[in-house]
């Protein structure tokens, strides 16, 4: 799959964190990016847009990232959700993995890590085809 065909959902309650991640993803050539500011919005956006990849913060108001992750996997068990959070503590990591997260990025986000994740998703999809 080509990077420019990807649909990506960025879910973070911080406007700034969303902008940074969005700018980073755009710089890799992807332009279909959707945003959500809390877990509830993330689920609605997932239903509406069926993104290929989801970047999900953990600490958020209304519904936190782990809860939203569980709900998204219930909607689509094949969903690829990457947790991107500042709270990479052992228990949060364990919760995220147990809930079915595909990967974890510790904030502050390293652009190279994001690129690596997107590239590996694209090449994996290619193999499947």
């Amino acid at each position: 799959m080509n990077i420019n065909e990807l649909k990506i959902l960025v879910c973070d309650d911080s406007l700034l964190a969303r902008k940074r991640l969005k700018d980073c993803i755009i710089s890799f050539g992807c332009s279909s990016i959707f945003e959500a500011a809390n877990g509830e919005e993330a689920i609605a956006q997932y239903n509406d847009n069926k993104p290929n990849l989801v970047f999900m913060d953990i600490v958020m108001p209304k519904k936190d990232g782990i809860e939203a992750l569980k709900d998204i996997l219930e909607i689509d068990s094949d969903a690829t959700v990457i947790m991107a959070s500042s709270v990479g503590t052992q228990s949060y990591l364990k919760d995220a993995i147990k809930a079915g997260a595909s990967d974890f990025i510790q904030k502050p986000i390293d652009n190279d890590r994001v690129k690596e994740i997107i590239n590996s998703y694209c090449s994996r999809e290619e193999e499947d085809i």
Partner: protein
Amino acid sequence: MFTQFFGNYLLNQKLITPKQLIDAIQQKQETRMKIGVLAINAGYMTASQVERIHELQSKIDKGLGDIAVELGYMTAKQLSTLLDAQPVGYLLLGQTIVDKGYMTNSQFESAINSYKEKYSLSDEDITNIENSKSEKLIASLFNFSNTSNPLLYKGFVSLLIKNFVRFVGDDFTPLEPEFSVQAVSYKTSSQNINGEFSALTHIFAEEKELIQFACRYSGENITELDEYVEASCQDFINLHNGLFTVNVSNNQQIELTLAPPTPLSDLSPNQVQGSLILPFQFPFGIIRFAISI
């Protein structure tokens, strides 16, 4: 880290006034580009990349290191290695203070020597302060043994200083800690840390200073108290507390959770009554961070 503490020492010893220090810090900024030389030295960047950033800096008011990280020329980790290892900072500060006539060369030399002696710092320590030494400097800021949990407070403050250097800029001096606030015009965002122990943290400052802080933190050109200012405060406090909980989880096997940071609101003095309040003097003003565990 050395420059920040050396500034604090000069103030404490009454060798310079706060106004003179701010003035010197502001002047020192003009020579911040030397990070470029260090980055080339370390093999992190090419001379042409440094050139390109110099051009960009005529349009963007940001440090070379920050732009380099944004452009992907350097990783944030490499930048922080350069900043941590940077001996230039204190030399530039000293040079600026002497140039401005606030101290003579020999006064500066003797201040530096007595500082090194007091904290048993060798020349090597100054060029590359290891953790144990910087902890000693942090301990000199404040007597943590009077707090409910000295280890946690010290860890929190030490990380906070590093995060200010890394995400806001190295041109600050930590001032004497405070335990209450007088002014009533501060804006704040706060965040609760919960778990085996609970803590309440606040970041606060006057409106105009928060705007400047947000300009630096977000890299956006912000002129009024808008959503970017709020997002910057929330993002910084969340990022710092997140990293703190990771450290506590890794080093002490204590698991903590974070509540979402609150929107900006007016600070009432009783919110931070009894907290340890750390003022960070930047050229644009003071940003305060409060913690109570």
